[in-house]
């Protein structure tokens, strides 16, 4: 087993272990910080898949943006910040059953399907120039729509969050 494989499994363990903490921890703040390590591990997976641009984007947008937003949400929606911020769970056994059935089915499909795998992996090139060309080429319309959606969503979010209560 060479070094790259060992590092790969270390990052897989980090990702899955912290994801398990996110799912089962009763402390919301602890879950949010575990989510940080999960997102970091997923960025490492992108790097292993030679998606350098996506790995950096993942760190910037998820870790730098969405996670901070989630922690803001946690802090703003609890009455006391000093005491433990706990949260309960419901219907654990039924949910575990459903999730085990779904996960088992998906894993069986992944394991048994003969995937179309390239015999020669593509040459390792920098991703950002290629992605930029595709955004301004064949993906121009989705790109423009996505930017409009993002603008509308952020203005809408600011508007909804700032609405004063009339009562």
């Amino acid at each position, binding site marked *: *087993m060479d070094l790259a*494989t060992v590092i790969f499994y270390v990052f897989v363990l980090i*990702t*899955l272990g912290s*994801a398990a903490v*996110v*799912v089962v921890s009763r402390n*919301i703040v602890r879950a*949010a910080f575990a*989510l940080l390590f*999960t997102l970091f591990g*997923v960025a490492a*997976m*992108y790097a292993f*898949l030679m*998606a350098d641009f*996506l790995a950096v984007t993942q760190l910037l*947008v*998820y870790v730098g*943006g*969405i996670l901070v*937003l*989630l922690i*803001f*949400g946690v802090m703003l*929606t609890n009455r006391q910040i000093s005491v433990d911020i706990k*949260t*309960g769970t*419901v*219907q654990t056994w039924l*949910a575990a059953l*459903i*999730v085990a059935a*779904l*996960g088992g089915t*998906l*894993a069986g499909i*992944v*394991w048994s399907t003969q*995937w*179309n*795998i*390239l015999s020669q*992996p*593509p040459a390792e090139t920098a*991703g950002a120039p*290629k*992605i930029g060309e*595709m955004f301004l080429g064949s*993906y121009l319309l989705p790109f423009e729509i*996505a930017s409009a959606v*993002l603008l509308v*969503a*952020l203005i*809408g*979010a600011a508007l*909804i*969050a700032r*609405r004063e*209560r009339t009562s």
Partner: protein
Amino acid sequence: MDDILTWLEHPGLTHFLLLSVLLFSMGLYAILTRKNAIMVLMGIELMLNASGINFIAFGRYSTGTFDGQVITVFVIILAAAEAAIALAIVLNIYQTFNTVNVDEINKLKD
């Protein structure tokens, strides 16, 4: 047994697909069991990340093009928009009901 050992030694498409299956299942479990709306959001983020791993893994091993990466950029864009909107709604719900537990919010109006 030797098959599994050689499989473990060479990370390939199925490794990433199985990782994303596990992440997706955990996200779904969080959505189904959590009371707090923000924890439900974290479960959704886990599921979106799992889909991103799938897209990029297929792009690298199966098609050899950058389409998967472009789609993942769109997934990240939509995740950011979704998180912003959802947190604004959660803040409003908290102002109205003084709780963000999804099992206690069962009224359309105060």
